[in-house]
């Protein structure tokens, strides 16, 4: 008689489950390869990276896109012809759209329609990290909200969770839409989410983020909030700053001097 049809289906199901996890269990037998990591002397190391955007300086240059161009060039961010596929890491929105709660009928005219650079806020309490089902996005030890492209399943829960619209999804293969591929940084593939990464690959080599370096007005100031001597702490002490949607409790780390 044997196990019968039902028994066979049950065993096959269990075997399939075991097989699905088999590789991970097989790794128990793998020998550990010890890697001796090190830092370079030049690496910029921080505990809580943040940025101050000095809008007084930024708005001097009308129509300037240097920060966006630099970032998108260095990180192989594609430029799609169809706006619905758009991917952007740092870009400009008007004041009334960026700071909706602050805007009113009599907003200071100089700033009312002015373009404000916006990017991922690398929040201290990021809702995107809270919702990611695979920890593909997580908060690093240096305060940067990191995207692990290898683990992302493309569910876009983080995009829904982000209150700032900082994240973009690759709706299609980006490679054909990158004008000059920068060979020092990978591209992404379709089906994963991407966003500003605070240039962690540049920080490791002792360089400031690409947008900070590209800004000719020096309107973007990058620094470690946990370092009381940093320029950013000095600016926060001496200037009034606003952040986007602070009442949501995300604790965003991009501060705007108005």
């Amino acid at each position, binding site marked *: 008689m044997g196990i019968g*049809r039902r028994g066979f289906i049950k065993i096959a199901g269990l075997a399939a489950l075991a097989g*699905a*996890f088999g590789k*991970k269990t097989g790794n128990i037998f793998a020998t550990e390869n010890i890697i001796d990591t090190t830092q370079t002397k030049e690496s910029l190391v921080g505990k809580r990276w943040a940025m101050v955007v000095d809008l007084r300086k930024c708005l001097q240059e009308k129509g300037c896109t240097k920060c966006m161009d630099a970032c998108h060039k260095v990180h192989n961010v594609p430029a799609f012809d*169809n*706006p*619905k*596929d*758009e*991917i952007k890491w740092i870009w400009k*929105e008007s004041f*009334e*759209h*960026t700071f*909706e709660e602050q805007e009113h009928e009599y907003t200071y005219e100089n700033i009312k329609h002015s373009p404000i650079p916006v990017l991922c806020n690398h929040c201290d309490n990021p*809702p995107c990290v*809270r*919702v*990611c*089902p*695979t*920890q*593909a996005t997580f908060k690093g030890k240096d305060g940067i909200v990191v995207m692990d492209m290898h*683990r*992302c*399943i*493309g*569910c*876009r*829960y983080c*995009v*829904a*969770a*982000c*209150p*700032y*619209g900082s994240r*973009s*999804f*690759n*709706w*299609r*293969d980006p490679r054909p839409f990158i004008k000059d591929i920068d060979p020092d940084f990978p591209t992404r593939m*379709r*089906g*994963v*989410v991407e966003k500003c990464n605070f240039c962690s690959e540049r920080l490791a080599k002792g360089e400031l983020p690409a947008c900070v370096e590209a800004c000719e007005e020096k309107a973007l100031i990058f620094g470690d909030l946990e370092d009381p001597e940093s320029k950013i702490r000095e600016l926060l002490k001496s200037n009034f700053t606003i952040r986007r*949607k602070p009442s*949501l*409790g*995300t604790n965003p780390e991009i501060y705007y001097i108005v």
Partner: protein
Amino acid sequence: MLERALIGGKKYWIWVFILLGLIFIGTLFYLRQFNTGLTITGLKRDITWGFYIAQFTFLVGVAASAVMMVLPYYLHNAKEFGKMTILGEFLAIPAVIMCMLFIFVDMGQPFRILNVFLYPTLHSMMFWDTVALGGYLLLNIVISQVTLGAEKKGIYPPKWIKPIIILSIPWAVSIHTVTAFLYAGLPGRSFWLTAVLAPRFLASAFASGPALLILFAFLIRKVSKLDPGKEAISKMGLIVTYAMVINVFLILMELFTAFYSNIPEHMHHFQYLFFGLDGKSTLVPWMWTSVILAIISLILLLTPSLRKNEKILGIACFTVFGSIWIDKGLGMVVTGFIPSPFGKVIEYWPTFPEFMISVGVYAIGALIVTGLYKIALSIREEFQT
């Protein structure tokens, strides 16, 4: 037992082949989506969840609604539901499978889906949603197999299945609650950030699911010699009535909070849905249709003489199902993204490939329902004669 799905008359096989055809077409479109990417859908940077996820949300509700028969029968000895619980479970299984399929077709990297289990993330509601749905599927497969198998042999089911059946009751509530939690905990999406979202989901689920089951009961009467019973259908009609009343009541509560507080952030979504915002009003006619259908359904259901008339009950069930499908399957997900985090109104409508893939998934669900119901009915018919 499964071989009983392969025995059927001409009409049965024509229906099966139509479904297989739709599945085939859907698969072709999905292959195109798999090769090119989700760009072939209507989704965009500012609206990242659309038709697929909306269908998933709606179908979780349908899956949960099986509990509305299991609960009265097993906890309150409502004997008239005895014949219908299997129909509820056999609807829950394909509903959950369709949910999983809709998630699969929506994912950017579907073959990485095991990452959710390889790297379990206890603070992510999506992790718990996969656990809850997977568990519910297993529960229903085990319960239906054991109870139907026992019925086929003409004996009572074994005692140990009873606690498992009782477990399926809170589990059914939890699958839709955790799905609501996906939305209701996101700080940036004020349309979803309401405590009433989970209760609303459950109320609409317990109205639309049993409504569908009533329609299936009528269908069963037509295509087989079986009759689920006037008592059962009448009680189900009552459940649909109460659930629809609560659902509409909760919607009205949301409208009150939004408009009496007059907070723009809360009002904007409802203004977009019912009146249009910034000149954009794609969903307005749909939402008003949903409202009219809801009003008709309440008139028909709340009038006892109308509700007791089975033909009119059938019409009421169609209107309930249609109204809630528009509300959940079109209005609910997309509106969370409108206005965008920058206050802009950007619209969405599914593309033709997206629609055909969805039809393919629905066809897979319909095929499984057809097969499972065929099995249940053929066992019942044999047992009766």
